[in-house]
Each structure stands twice: as structure tokens, then as C-alpha cells.
């Protein structure tokens, strides 16, 4: 059989369960003992596999790239004499990780085999009803998990139901001033309450600030006969486009 890397890879694609699995595969292909792992060639082969996976448009998990960068860092350290100790440490760590992983794979295979064997026997599947109703509540082994799962479901459902709020565009000082200018281009007198009739609080505040500004620079005169009584606004100056632009510039 032809074992060019690409062909080999395509055979293996479904099989890799993570970076350690791929690494272990490469070590075995070299017929090396894990403890003899040569970092430089393994790094290159590993990178070649990742590249090939990308070429095949496989969705490669970030985990593979993390390992690739670790390997590259190790390779770099191996070339720098004063990093020798650090390199050896990393290499030992990787060897330990691979050896442990190899054991896990063996254990997983054994468990799977046992399960397959066990699955050949069937339990009694009919559930007989011999029970009294008033029984106490008991929580199964997975109680806490069920609790958080149920809560997660509620939260997810609420998220899905949450209306998308379209926030009303907030008023700008510019909008409010434009409105005041429009009113006083036509009228000499206006009641403050009519200007802000059915407007929300933000608008009222902006309008009041605008009025104060216009009073300050002599364009309006304000009269109020009593506390909380009607504020009457009277035009004194000019309300044209130029003036409006000038005032807006001041607020910006």
C-alpha cells in the first residue's frame, strides 16, 4: 500500500482525537519509542499534517495549533545553547504527557471492548408497576447536573423569547434647537408647556437648557408669574438659519 503522507492522512482524518493522538501516530510511524522522540523532525511532520488538513478544508480545532506552537518553541529552544535546560524540561514533559496518553488510549479501548461485550446482554425491558404512590423524593446521581441543565434550558428559552428592543433614537441638542427655531420663526410668543407637550423627560431637559441659552444671549425673554406656573417665552432677537447654525456649533 502506498503510504504517501497525503494518502495516509486521508485514511486517518476521522481518526485523530486531538493533538496528542496525531503526535502519537507520528511517533509510531517513525517506529520510535516515545522516550526517544526527536523534536525537530516530529515538528516538521506535525506542521505538514496541519497544512494538509487545511488544504483539505478540514475544520481543525485550535488545540492542534496550540500543540504546533509548543513544538515550534521547543525546536527553537533546541537550537539555542543557553536554552538547553529549558528545552530538556519541555521535552521530558511532552514525553510524560504522551506516555500517559498512550495508557489512556489503551484503557479506553479496553473499556470499549468490555462495554461491547456487556451490550450483548439485555435487561428485562418491561417495567412492572408494583409500587405505592406516597414515596419520598430521592435525587439520582446526576441531580446537580439536571438542575443546572434545566436552569440552562430556562435561560436559553428566555433568551430566544426576548424581544429585540429598538431603542428610540435619543434626542440631540441639535434636534431640540431646530424645533425651537422653527417655532420662533413663525411665532412671537409660545408657552413652554406647549413646546414640550407629551415629550419625554430628556426632551424637556434639553428644551429647557436651550431656552436658557437663548435667554442668556438675548434672543428670548421668559416670564413666569409664580412658582410652577406657566413659563411664557417671547421672541426678542432674530431666528434665522445662520443664528441656528451658530448656536448648534456652540453646543457641539
Amino acid at each position, binding site marked *: 500500500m502506498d503510504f504517501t503522507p497525503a494518502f495516509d492522512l486521508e485514511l486517518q482524518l476521522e481518526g485523530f482525537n486531538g493533538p496528542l493522538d496525531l503526535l502519537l501516530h507520528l511517533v509510531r510511524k517513525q517506529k520510535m519509542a516515545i522516550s526517544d522522540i526527536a523534536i525537530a523532525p516530529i515538528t516538521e511532520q506535525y506542521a505538514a499534517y496541519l497544512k494538509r488538513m487545511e488544504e483539505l478544508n478540514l475544520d481543525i480545532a485550535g488545540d492542534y495549533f496550540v500543540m504546533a506552537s509548543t513544538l515550534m518553541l521547543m525546536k527553537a529552544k533546541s537550537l539555542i545553547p543557553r536554552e538547553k535546560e529549558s528545552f530538556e524540561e519541555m521535552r521530558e514533559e511532552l514525553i510524560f504527557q504522551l506516555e500517559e496518553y498512550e495508557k489512556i488510549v489503551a484503557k479506553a479501548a479496553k473499556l470499549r471492548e468490555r462495554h461491547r461485550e456487556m451490550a450483548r446482554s439485555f435487561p*428485562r425491558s418491561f417495567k*412492572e408497576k408494583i409500587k405505592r404512590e406516597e*414515596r419520598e423524593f430521592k435525587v439520582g446521581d446526576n441531580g*446537580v447536573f439536571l*438542575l443546572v441543565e*434545566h436552569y440552562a434550558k*430556562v435561560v436559553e428559552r428566555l433568551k430566544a423569547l426576548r424581544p429585540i428592543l429598538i431603542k428610540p433614537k435619543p434626542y440631540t441638542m441639535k434636534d431640540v434647537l431646530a424645533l425651537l427655531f422653527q417655532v420662533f420663526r413663525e411665532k412671537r410668543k409660545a408657552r413652554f408647556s406647549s413646546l414640550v407637550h407629551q415629550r419625554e423627560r430628556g426632551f424637556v431637559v434639553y428644551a429647557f437648557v436651550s431656552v436658557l441659552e437663548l435667554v442668556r444671549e438675548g434672543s428670548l425673554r421668559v416670564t413666569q408669574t409664580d412658582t410652577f406656573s406657566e413659563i411664557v417665552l417671547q421672541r426678542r432677537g432674530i431666528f434665522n438659519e445662520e443664528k441656528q447654525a451658530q448656536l448648534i456649533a456652540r453646543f457641539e
Partner: protein
Amino acid sequence: MDKDFKATIEALIFAADAPLSVEKIARILEVDSELVQNAVDELSADYKPRGMNLFELAGGYQFLTARRFYPMVLKMKDTDRSLSLSQAAFETLAIVAYRQPLTSQEISAMRGVQSVSNILRKLQELELIRIAGRKDVIGRPMLYRTTPKFLELFGLNSLGDLPSLEEIGVNES
């Protein structure tokens, strides 16, 4: 009669979800119905003195616990205490656990239902939740909390031990 033949039939009846007919057994084993019927009759007699009996029900055969041992089985099931909560009750309990203290209206709103009062009563009877004061809003509705028994049953030391949504990979917002 071939012992293994009888044993195969025994296995089939035992594992079936519902009473198993002689014809169906005959089809599976690719033998004559009469042969199966004889084996079933023998099995039925074999099981007479035992803990389970072979019953003829709804046109088929099924193993059921022998009636005379019901009292003992009941005793066992009582010690099981394995009453499970309905989905709705579990969900309600989860909401109280994570959002306590809160009112029944708040729970209803989260579950998107009109009322949870029956479930709340049930959970109170099971001593999983309790009333823990009233909320300071109009109508002063009652507030619910989980009980120490809830913690004990779920093997938690404190409410802080409840797994967070992030821990199971769900985003809260």
C-alpha cells in the same frame, strides 16, 4: 426437548418490551409454532414455584413477578424512595435554586406559564422549597427559597456549590 431451544425462548420473552406471541417467537427462530408452544408450556410449568412466573397476556407471554412475593417487592420499592420529579417540577426547582428568593409570579414568567402554584405546593410538600418572607411590592407576594433538605438531597454544601452556567458551557446573557 432441547434445553437451549427452551433457553432461547426464555431469553426472548425476558427481553421483550411487551407480551411476546408464540407466532412471533416462531418467526424469529424460524421454527414451527407448535414447537414453540410446547416449549412455552413447559417453561410456564417450570416457573410455577419460582420468583417470577410466565403469564399469558394480550395474546402473548410475559414474565412477571410472582404475585405471592408482592409484599416483599413492595417493601423493596418503598426503600427505593426513587420518586422522580416531573420535567416541569424540576425546572421550577432549578429556577428557585438559581434565582432565590423570588415570587411565584416571577417563576411563572420565567417558565412562560400562567401559574406554578400546584408545582410550588408539591415542592413544598417534598420539603425542597419554603416560603421565606414577602416581597416589598404591592400585594406583598410570598418569596420562595430552597431548604437545607434540598442541599442535602443534591449533595451540596451551600448554594455556592451549584454549578454555574459557564461551567456547563452556556452563556448567561
